[in-house]
């Protein structure tokens, strides 16, 4: 069996296992292709620099999908993501090592759901995306 959290095991203050992501140029390209997104800052380094970016920019919604994965990997396949929100505070660039961390901040027994506070930081500790999510846990 697995160790996915349930309403009877989850506690406020529980920490989600940290997740690391690091997007290569090929991954940025694949995301642009899969999302039909021709924005040049994601594949044309000279143009990204011209717009004032240090390097190729990691797509915001790609990081959004990493956030949802961070939650659903922890909560398990029978859980249901109810909501998620994030703010873009600073850019992530190609090759940056990105670290996702999260904590259970509230438990709603009636709704069988928990609230999570999540952060995506780069290796310097700069907060790139603060996020919040609500997820309905499976089982008793």
């Amino acid at each position, binding site marked *: 069996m697995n160790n996915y959290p349930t309403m009877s095991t989850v506690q406020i203050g529980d920490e989600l296992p940290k997740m690391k*992501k690091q997007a290569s140029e090929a*991954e940025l390209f*694949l*995301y642009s*292709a*899969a*999302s*039909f*997104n*021709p*924005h*040049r*800052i994601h594949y*044309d380094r000279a*143009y990204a620099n011209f*717009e004032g970016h240090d390097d190729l920019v990691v797509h*915001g*919604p*790609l990081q*959004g*999908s*990493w956030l*949802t*994965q961070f939650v*659903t*990997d922890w909560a398990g*396949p*029978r859980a*249901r*993501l*109810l*909501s*998620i*929100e*994030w*703010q*873009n505070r600073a850019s992530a660039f190609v090759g940056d090592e990105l670290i996702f961390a999260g904590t259970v901040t509230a438990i709603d027994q009636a709704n069988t759901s928990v609230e999570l506070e999540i952060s995506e930081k780069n290796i310097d500790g700069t907060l790139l*995306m603060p996020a919040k999510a609500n997820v309905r846990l499976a089982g008793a």
Partner: protein
Amino acid sequence: MPSSLIPPDSLKRIGEVLSGPFTVRIELREAQRYAYAVGDLNPIYFDETAAVAAGYATLTVPPLFLTHALVQPKPIENLRTDGLYNDNASIELRVSRMMFGGEEWDFHEPVCVGDEITGTTRLADLDEKEGQKGSFVRLVRETTFTNQRGDIVAKSRQIGIAR
């Protein structure tokens, strides 16, 4: 207070439909391409038995795939210098730079491969705020996604910051 960054004609557009309604079928190949591209190999996107065991009717899709499933193909002639598409969904503002501020999503019903999803995007909010670096405009595009049964499956709010 008269708004300096938002022309009055743009303010009048609050509530207006900016794009859609567009209806698309959720395709297995597109959804799995998206899952591979984001590196999310959850079995509920790839293994029907796993998806059914998890309570879905059939394979489900990564939550944020919805936005991309609804993207309308457009001719290359419509591309601007920055690679984004020119479209009439642009709101005229007296600003030089538009940034993505973040997103907010609510999920109401599962979305599975084969579902027919209709998305409609409205200008939900447009207002001018004072920040540490001066005035900026906060622009909210809200998309409502419904399925073939008429259920609202999700809502997304994309927040743009312009200054």
